[in-house]
């Protein structure tokens, strides 16, 4: 199964860096997500996850290090998390880590959003400050 790697960029739109590794089972999305065609960008990621869950059926560690995402992107993030929840419900082992910048103040809304993802999906998401990221990984 092929890996996915998308190098992020910050021009007119903000493309996140995506690194999904089928060999290690570690999938990471980082940077910022504000896209011209959000669903078109995330569709290949949904397809990759679907193949991983149905063919490889291995443990997956999902790392989210997004510092900004618009509301369209948040919908796709929820959809991915719901896929992870369905995999977990079917017996798959899922670890999800959400990283935030603990040096940044005024991030209550960001952490509220992560709490809302937890409530919407029923997943256990580990909320990890960047300062402790290396120890947690």
């Amino acid at each position, binding site marked *: 199964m092929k890996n996915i790697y998308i190098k992020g960029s910050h021009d007119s739109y903000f493309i996140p860096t995506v690194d999904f590794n089928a060999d290690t089972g570690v999938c990471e999305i980082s940077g910022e997500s504000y896209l011209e065609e959000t669903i078109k960008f995330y569709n290949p990621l949904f397809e990759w996850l679907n193949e991983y869950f149905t063919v490889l059926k291995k443990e997956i560690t999902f790392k989210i290090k997004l510092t900004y995402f618009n*509301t369209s992107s948040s919908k796709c993030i929820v959809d991915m998390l719901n896929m992870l929840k369905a995999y977990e419900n079917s017996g798959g082992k899922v670890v999800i880590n959400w990283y935030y910048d603990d040096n940044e103040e005024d991030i209550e809304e960001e952490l509220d959003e992560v709490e809302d993802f937890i409530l919407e999906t029923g997943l256990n998401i580990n909320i990890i400050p960047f300062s402790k990221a290396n120890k947690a990984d």
Partner: protein
Amino acid sequence: MISIDKLEILNELDVSNTQLLSTYEGMFDNEMIGFFSRRMVNFSYDSPGLQKKLIVSFIELAQNVGYYSADKQNDFNGKIVGVGALLLGLRDSNVFFCIANKVLNSELNVLQRKCELINSLNREQLRELKRNNRNLIPGTNGGAHIGLIMIALITNKPLHIQYFKVDDTMSYFIIYVELSKKRAATDNE
């Protein structure tokens, strides 16, 4: 196009301490959104978090105009983009912007009810509404149905809205956002 004197919402501002920095009328395409986002980055803020709130609010509302304005034009690539108006200014230690776009009168009631609902809810209720709406089928352009809810949550204020009728077909929808560049003083300060 809309003229500034129609924006009664601005009458509430104390103009003696208001500095109007930019006005814009035209397509809300990505170049426009990028230009004004970068403009807002250049103001000084107490923290990056406060800067982020303003820019996130602006991008969300500007994207809404680009996608949903009832007044549309073709950009240079032939892509259809919504048209609207923007005012950007400073008032004391606050940054404000005002965005206006046309909406169909047939859709105005729905929009008004949505705004009234948002303004009637407390923070926890807004978060619940956001969670429920996000599970709906995506709208046009992948919309998550939560943009205006997010504005209320980010600004921690009711939506400041004005509408006025243009003709039998269309009205203007105007939203005003004001955020401080300074962190609020705490009891310990």
